[in-house]
């Protein structure tokens, strides 16, 4: 208990932060994938079309409406 008291939080003992240099590659890598996925569910073959046709639009159609994205 005395050890726990010695290690008890004081204003000087900060919660360790994750260095930005460690975070950046993960943020870049996953940020790109996430943006791509979100784009295909929210906007592809709607206002913008990278691929032709309406297959993707129709497949994710109900999700696009119910997740509050503008659909058509």
């Amino acid at each position, binding site marked *: 208990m005395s*050890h*726990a008291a010695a290690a008890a939080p004081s204003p000087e003992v900060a919660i360790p932060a994750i260095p930005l240099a460690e975070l950046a590659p993960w*943020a870049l890598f996953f*940020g790109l994938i996430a943006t791509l996925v979100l784009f295909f569910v929210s906007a592809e073959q709607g206002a913008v079309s990278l691929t032709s046709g*309406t297959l993707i639009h*129709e497949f*994710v159609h*109900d999700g696009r409406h119910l997740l509050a994205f503008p659909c058509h």
Partner: protein
Amino acid sequence: MTARAFLVRGLVAGLLAGFATFLVAHQVGEPQVEAAIALEESAAHQAAPSTPGMSAHAHGSDHETVVSRGTQRTWGLLAGSLGVGVALGGLVALGSALAVGRLGRLGAAAASAVVALTGFVAVALVPFLKYPANPPGVGSAETIGVRTEYYFAFLLISVVTAAAATVVAARAWPRIGGWGAVVLGTGTYVVVVAVLGALMPSVNEVGDFPAATLWAFRRGSLFTLAALWATIGIVLSGLVGRLEQREAATNRRRTLAASL
């Protein structure tokens, strides 16, 4: 704790959130989508009874579409929910990894909960208040371009403002304390977003669509978004909190062993 540890837990939280989103969307939202499509079709048949199947719309009866309505409201909805769930789960986890140690004295679990709550308000709720979800049949096809631009522009404004307000609050925290920092941060966000939201153009293409169906659809959409963000927040902060406690216990044991 590492960025990778956060991300992995965020993906798990996002997967569960995807299933929760699908469940709520399917049970609460789909009946309204079906009702809206029925209204849209009966209106289309009244307007042009001699040209069935001419519409290039994604909705309408099965013979007009590439993907059947039955697939759209089940597998399509599930795929969309899982995709958005996993993507947002991972992003919230990376936001939490950035926030921990930088938001006053909040630990990993508390920081994750704050990031998920902020995400729900900034990404889902506030854009919804300005540009609410519309069921099929509401909104003209010619304006999809500008409506999409407005929506994503306001979404970007909301997210950037929330991030900036959080930085302001975190900087002020040591001087004015936790309570003051939260009031300062939320106050800054609300004022900036309210002013910019009032300046952005409004969209009203509801026409004579039945108000009760529109409200039921929008309520269902809000419940869907709430299920998505609540599941991400609860699962992520739970998983991250468990790891946090395990690491704290290891550190205590190590300190104890070193002192013997």
